[in-house]
């Protein structure tokens, strides 16, 4: 809690660029933040990033967990393999994807070129901007959803499937009426985790694009870092970080309400 108190105090001071307190500034930093067009732009980028990650994580999690729930040879080893990317740190994910996305030697460019889908190597990050980064984050994050969904799939009683099959229910109907009720809780947990973790994410953007090109991947966390450590305004950075924390707590609170109400 102590660092939080220090941050609150810092957000109310005016700092000079060399990191010394100049004077008490009151709400000045907060007023500046709400008028700052960069803050609005960054918030929008953060939302795009977060929504993409959450959607991809949930869809991939559902699809892959249903697939890996089927019986086939080598299933247990494939499960371990497919879930393993969660163990790779976020910064390392960024550097791995640097090799995939690179315009000079990237393997995604190599693959698309050899498949004849593109005529020459493209600057993938400049074209895809924040979406491309969100995809890399989802690669690192979806395994958590896959693992969790697989766990809840195994709690579905087998006789319900058999019953539904006897009743002649289609695949989609079986999923909706039998599987989904057992997964609802797992789904909500993953929604909460993916949303808050995506909003908190910084290492990936930092290591892959540094907010570029032209600030198009400057998520809110990166802007906090930039305002504080590159532009050198500690007080303004602290104020921005409080706004970010409020946003995350708000999201958590909304989910919390939804989650507890659904269970009753």
């Amino acid at each position, binding site marked *: 809690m102590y660092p939080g108190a220090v941050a609150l105090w810092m957000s109310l001071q005016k700092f000079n660029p060399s990191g010394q307190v100049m004077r008490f500034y009151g709400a000045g930093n907060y007023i500046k933040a709400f008028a700052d067009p960069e803050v609005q732009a960054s918030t929008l980028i953060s939302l795009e990033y977060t929504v993409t990650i959450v959607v991809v994580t949930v869809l991939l999690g559902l699809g892959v967990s249903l697939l890996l729930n089927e019986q086939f040879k080598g299933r247990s080893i494939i499960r371990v393999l497919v879930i393993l990317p969660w163990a790779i740190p976020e910064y390392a994910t960024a550097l791995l994807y640097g090799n995939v996305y690179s315009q000079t*030697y990237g393997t995604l460019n190599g693959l698309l070129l050899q498949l004849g889908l593109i005529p020459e190597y493209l600057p993938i990050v400049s074209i895809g901007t924040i979406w491309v980064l969100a995809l890399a984050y989802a690669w690192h994050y979806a395994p958590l959803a896959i693992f969790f969904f697989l766990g809840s799939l195994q709690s579905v009683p087998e006789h319900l499937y058999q019953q539904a099959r006897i009743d002649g229910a289609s695949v989609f109907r079986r999923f909706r009426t039998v599987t989904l009720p057992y997964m609802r809780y797992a789904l909500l947990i993953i929604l909460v985790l993916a949303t808050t973790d995506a909003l908190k994410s910084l290492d990936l953007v930092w290591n892959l694009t540094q907010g570029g090109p032209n600030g198009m991947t400057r998520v809110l966390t990166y802007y906090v870092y930039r305002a504080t450590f590159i532009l050198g305004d500690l007080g303004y950075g602290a104020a921005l970080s409080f706004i970010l924390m409020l946003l995350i707590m708000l999201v958590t609170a909304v989910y919390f309400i939804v989650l507890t109400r659904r269970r009753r």
Partner: protein
Amino acid sequence: MARSRAKMIVLYVMVAAVVVWSAFPIYTTVLISLMDTREAVLTPTHWIPQQPTLDWYGRILALVPDATTGKMLAYADAFKQGFVNSIFVACVVTLLSVIVGSVAGYAFARFSFRRKNAWLMSILLSRSLPAAAMAIPFFFMFHQAGLIGTYQGLIITYLSFEIPLATWILMGYFANLPLETERAGRIDGLGRLGVLFRVVIPEAIGGVASVGILLFLISWSEFFFAYILVTGSAAQTVPPAVSELTTIMAGLSPPPELAASLVISMIPALVLGAIFQKYILRLKIVDPVVARTGEEIPFA
């Protein structure tokens, strides 16, 4: 249940697609790390190295000198030092967090005291703070205290979020243990701490060990605080050391050098992750679940 041949083929194709999606970035990086600098940037990509070489691994670990200049790689020192630092910091933080977290978690699980819920709430809140926000007060405080670029600064920072995490998870573990053996321990004349360390922890050793591995991986993987607090110092850990190859030396560092150091840096996490996958992921999810709803969930 019998299935048609066609269905099995579709199933295997889909499984193969998922495996390719998961493995592609890792394969890419291992591939590049085994090439020489010239082959790594060829268009189009070679999917299998023509002359696979461990040369870059040798250079990064300072086992072989550069073939043309005959000198050892300057980066190798920083990388090796980073490896030692990372292991040192992660071990100290894990050990302290598990010890303090055990005592605190046991207290939360077994005793009632004033403002217990407020304490629990503050632990929970500290889990929702982004590193970008927390780095600011830590940087300011350590700047004032002269702890930038030291082990102490980084260790204090990691402890500040790993002790609450350890407390939180271990509280759940201890609360579910039966009380009988603890009573027996008390009757045998052990104090509260004696009961904790002689009876409770040995009983829950599996859980305590998986918490330890989770905490070790968190320290090992942490980039941002390490970058802000110890970059370029003697206390620099692996993540900023590897990341530095893409930023400060941008354009100068050949792709295989980065790829090889990335592969080495990921090995501990991948090995621990593959062996203890089930236990650690269970903790990772159960932690926020228990935190938010206080309920258990079914698991594979």
